[in-house]
């Protein structure tokens, strides 16, 4: 069956690019290199017969070359830029961006559905590009501009796309709607005249169990038309 052209490694790459240490000339940290580094650390520790430092133990092991900051496993403080504001978060490094948005920042518009990047319901923007927030750690979103559905508009001041969703009944239960809206606005934001095929590609990774896709396409076309007539 047809599936999303969404780059499966996109979150991974953003994580690699998101390393704040990189700006300071420090070593790069990505989840992949972190895991590699952690594996190497464990292997070295095993070879030398040295136990890794336990929580609350003595001095932690010095970082192995090639790894960077060690965070967690307990909660750490960090800042996120969300919908134009800086928010301070205290969360374990293992917490996903979706988890922080919903459970720490109260931004429950972003939905948890499949929990593995398969359905698009948790789509948010990272520097304007769509990412599945269930597949990304919150700490990897530091130093990026995060936009959630709440950042697009509120019920009393919806943007053109949100208005079009209402006008065209582009939702049934509404649970896929935030992800659909974020995916569409990211893909079509700079496109004043999207074709139905471009709209379909934009939401190819967004699953709607109610089967409301035809009206979503109509809404995206209507929103583009409304934007053109304003321009």
């Amino acid at each position: 069956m047809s599936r999303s052209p969404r780059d499966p490694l996109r979150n991974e790459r953003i994580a690699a690019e998101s390393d704040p240490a990189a700006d300071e000339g420090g070593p790069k940290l990505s989840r992949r290199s972190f895991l590699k580094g952690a594996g190497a650390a464990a292997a070295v520790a095993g070879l030398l017969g040295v136990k890794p430092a336990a929580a609350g133990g003595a001095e932690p092991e010095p970082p192995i070359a090639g790894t960077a900051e060690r965070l967690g496993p307990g909660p750490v403080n960090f800042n996120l830029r969300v919908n134009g504001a800086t928010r301070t978060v205290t969360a374990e490094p293992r917490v996903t961006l979706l988890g922080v948005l919903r459970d720490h920042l109260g931004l429950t518009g972003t939905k948890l559905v499949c929990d593995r990047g398969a359905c698009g319901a948790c789509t948010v923007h990272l520097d304007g590009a769509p990412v599945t927030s269930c597949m990304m750690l919150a700490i990897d979103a530091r130093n990026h501009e995060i936009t959630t559905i709440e950042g697009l508009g509120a019920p009393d001041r919806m943007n053109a796309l949100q208005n079009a969703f209402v006008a065209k009944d582009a939702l049934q239960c509404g649970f896929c709607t935030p992800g659909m809206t974020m995916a569409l606005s990211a893909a079509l934001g700079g496109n004043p005249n999207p074709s139905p095929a471009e709209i379909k590609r934009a939401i190819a990774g967004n699953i709607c169990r109610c089967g409301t896709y035809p009206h979503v396409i109509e809404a995206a076309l209507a929103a583009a038309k409304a934007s053109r007539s304003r321009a």
Partner: protein
Amino acid sequence: MIKVDYAPMPFVVAMEDAMRPDAPAVFESGANVGSPHVNETGNVAAGFESAEASVDAVYTTPVQTHVSLETHGAVASWNGDELTVWCSTQGIFGVRDDLAVHFSLPPENVRVITAYLGGGFGSKFGAGHEVIIAAELARMARAPVKLMLSRAEEHVATGNRPSSRQHVRIGAARDGALTAIELEQHGSGGIGGGSGSAAPYLALYRCANFRTRERNVYINAGPASPMRAPGWPQGCFALELAIDELARKLNLDRLEMRRRNNPSPVRALEFDLGARAFGWDERSRTPKSRGPIRRGVGVASAAWHGIGASGPQAQCVAYRDGRVAVRIGTQDVGTGTRTIIAMVAAEELGLPLRSVTAEIGDTRYLFSLPSGGSMTAPSTTPAVRQAAAHLKGKLMRLAAPALGASPEDLVISDGVVRVRAEPNRAIKFADLCRRIPGDSLAADGEHVPNYGGYSMTQAGCQFAGVEVDIETGIVRVTDFVAVHDAGVIVDPLTARSQVNGGIIMGVGFALFEDRRLDPQTGLMVNPTMDDYKLPGVFDTPEIRAYFVEVANGITNTGVLGMGEAVHVAATAAIGCAVADAIGAPVRDLPLTPDRVLAAIGAV
């Protein structure tokens, strides 16, 4: 600290294995195969005797899961012996009653709130283990507890559409008139029953001689629960494919075959409308391409009975500041209930829609039924309309002295109350509301028992077009025409959304969906949304919906529920179109490339 000891037990997860005499027993007492539920009329043997042609074939359908995007679960919070639960449910009052029984509380001590829910499709009735566990934990923790199931838990434990194995025999006379239908059906809803799929065999076509025997087969798997027209999509798939096979034997046009056995005058009209819109005559007679892409068309009949029932009560309230609220303890499972309730109240009160607020999803409001079986629109709108009418009567009595007229001489439209004979004598609704003594004026309404009406069923039909790549076996559904009796359409937008959704869910059942259990471990091997395949936007055909608004006279709104009627025939129409495209039926769902290639003898 919880310590669990596990002991592996013999188990069985395939229906055919569970039917063997030496199969492990699923229950300590009772057989794996239930006793048959039989429906019989006429003389089936004589019917087959008189048949010019007959079909004898076995059709199977897999277990389908609901995959509501929001999983089951709740937030539970206690205040003394009062429990409040925010729950993803299709039936707030059912959840309330389950919790009241479990905790031995009077029902009024339990409040269930469902402002919105992320889909249900029949799986979210009653409290369920997860909601009771959340409430138990909240009581022990003396704190609110949130418990939402994971996607895998949702797949395994919250219900499914049972599988089916349908052995169909069907015979017809030379003119296509059905002479006999016989169904031997087995189906498994895991440790649950309710697998029967005979209903469409009894409802869709005229046949004097039929016998259906339905049996539940139990396996060690999660229990079935209702799913969008329980039994119907399975039954329609097998029956409609068999009808097509029979029409071919009789060299009859497949639509004509259906016309000749159709008992519904409404569907007769719908067949004509749909055939014209779809281009049936031309498309069904177009010779097949000799290239790799083969086009096919199919048609299938739909029926349901979304006529609603009594029970719902509604309240309409006008406030001194001009606001109007309509409150009813229903819930919007995604069908647009909130929208159409406001529309009905606004229309009855002669107000613009924006001035009416619909408030639903709270057991503090008056009772309404669970949202399932296409019951909600036809059950709630009559209560809402009556409440609005009663409120209008009170408002007219309030307006009468101000306008120097009697209440029965007043009319209200576009937010203005006027004397019927002298429209210039008028008072704006907002000004009238300022005359309300105290804070507000309220009136209740109820769904009175359905009137006799013209018909207690609703007819429909759907036409499907497909393209099959005979080199890869991949099926693409290109387009659909759906023609349905929906009574009075309140909101064409939400009605069309139901049609789109019913057909797209039918695409999933036809092409992709299949719960797979590992015979070695008994576990579900595809409990995720990447392995359990649902249709996406590129799998969605072009859909054209036509509504035949039958003035049925059933209630004061004449509204019918749509959710099931638009779903029952979709998979069948696709199956028939695929058989047409490749010249051979694929009798097992889903219609995967391997099965398509096997049907044409390519593998």
